[in-house]
């Protein structure tokens, strides 16, 4: 059986490091964090950027951990710009000051996405675990806006900060952000470990949605608001990554090439290493990318579903995390035979949330890799 060569990826998420001054309990990094000694060298990343541009990647997102912890970041940005890639820096902002921003702007960085944990320093620093972080973030936002570079603020939403969404949007507007993301926690990795401490109620979710709709009506086109909901409350699953191995490729600090940033939870399939194969070979042929690409892998009810090429069966990592089977229909879908699993989780959320398990090297339940 032959399958046509897949279309090339649109976006590359370059996770330069897992090191980060913050310890957010909903971090999208895997539980087993890569240490500094495992990180790819500058020359490795330069080669990756060349290959990505050659394949047809349009945008590269420099992320982490905190990508500004890598001193070679300006060099990597400059190289990506020279290859015609659109460059985005996804940062906590706590290492961004006038001296560290200047080389990035001079390298041609196109855009900054700056994360905030909350609108007030107290609860923000409770989540991030770093005293003084909020003022550094505010200063980072001012530096980016003063330069004229477009700025997106990203707020991760959970049960303890839902009520402050209107003030988050007002802060974004006041700082001069062009975009803001109001993104509910996604329950993978650290977010899954901390789910009982983070998951909002249905009423809180409705409140959040209303706050976003009100702000959109008030602000019109002057500030774009992207809104990401927690899919546990949805009827249909999200089209994770726009389909497995279709639009998006992630490279971990240690050089593992992945279809999404949570894919290291999968078992029974090798993780391709960018130091032993080319990006194009991996994208086209690696079993990890092929196994859930398209619709051939789908079980019922996905296989016969009219939405199969819209949501692509939902999220493989969620099916694995909640059902123990990465090849099952995402249980978020009301058509899943296991949707009652989601209902049971939501029905058993505690009134008093447990304490956070912070994202730190060696702090994950079950230990490190």
């Amino acid at each position: 059986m032959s399958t046509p060569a897949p279309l090339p990826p649109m976006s590359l998420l370059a996770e330069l490091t897992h090191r980060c001054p913050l310890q957010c309990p909903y971090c999208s990094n895997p539980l087993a964090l890569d240490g500094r000694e495992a990180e790819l060298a500058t020359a490795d990343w330069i080669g990756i950027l060349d290959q990505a541009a050659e394949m047809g990647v349009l945008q590269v997102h420099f992320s982490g951990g905190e990508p500004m912890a890598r001193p070679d970041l300006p060099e990597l940005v400059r190289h990506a710009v020279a290859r015609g890639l659109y460059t985005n820096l996804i940062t906590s902002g706590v290492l961004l000051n006038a001296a560290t921003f200047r080389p990035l702007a001079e390298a041609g960085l196109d855009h900054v996405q700056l994360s905030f944990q909350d609108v007030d320093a107290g609860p923000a620093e409770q989540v991030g675990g770093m005293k003084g972080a909020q003022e550094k973030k505010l200063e980072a936002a001012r530096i980016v806006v003063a330069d004229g570079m477009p700025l997106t603020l990203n707020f991760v939403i959970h049960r303890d900060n839902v009520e402050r969404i209107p003030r988050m949007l007002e802060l974004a507007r006041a700082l001069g952000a062009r975009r803001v993301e109001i993104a509910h926690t996604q329950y993978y990795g650290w977010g899954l470990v901390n789910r009982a401490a983070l998951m909002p109620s249905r009423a809180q979710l409705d409140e959040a949605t209303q706050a976003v709709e009100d702000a959109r009506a008030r602000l019109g086109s002057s500030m774009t608001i992207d809104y990401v909901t927690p899919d546990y409350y949805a009827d249909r699953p999200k089209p994770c990554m726009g389909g497995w191995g279709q639009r998006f490729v992630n490279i971990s600090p240690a050089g593992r090439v992945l279809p999404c940033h949570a894919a290291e939870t999968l078992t029974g399939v090798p993780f391709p290493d960018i130091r032993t194969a080319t990006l194009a070979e991996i994208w086209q042929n690696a079993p990890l990318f092929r196994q859930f690409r398209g619709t051939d892998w789908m079980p019922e009810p996905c296989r016969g579903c009219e939405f199969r090429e819209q949501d692509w069966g939902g999220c493989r990592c969620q099916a694995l995390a909640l059902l123990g089977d990465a090849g099952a229909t995402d249980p978020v879908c009301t058509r899943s035979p296991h949707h009652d699993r989601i209902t049971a989780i939501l029905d058993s959320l505690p009134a008093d949330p447990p304490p956070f398990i912070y994202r730190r090297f060696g702090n994950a339940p079950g230990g490190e890799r």
Partner: protein
Amino acid sequence: MTDRPAMAAAPTGPDMAEDAIVRFMRGVRLQHDRVRDQWVIQAPERAFVPDPIATAILRLVDGQRSVGAIVDLLAARFDAPRATIAHDVLAMVADLAARQVLTR
């Protein structure tokens, strides 16, 4: 991060006049995608494919030409009354401004 294949409906943009000089907003550009052989608008957290009319206009945006000058160039290239082209270009430029692609 999303990449959207086409433009969706947008809110009405600011009024545009022929004497307005438009340019790309910082962080936004039109780029030829060599691998897919198409023009794409590169913007914060998204890349999307403009329709043929938008592409023709955007290829003439250089930060120096007025909207009227762009209309003149397109009127010389396409077999349509200038007034018709002016109407379409003004509407498209206003739309692109509302989408944070162009600014004056």
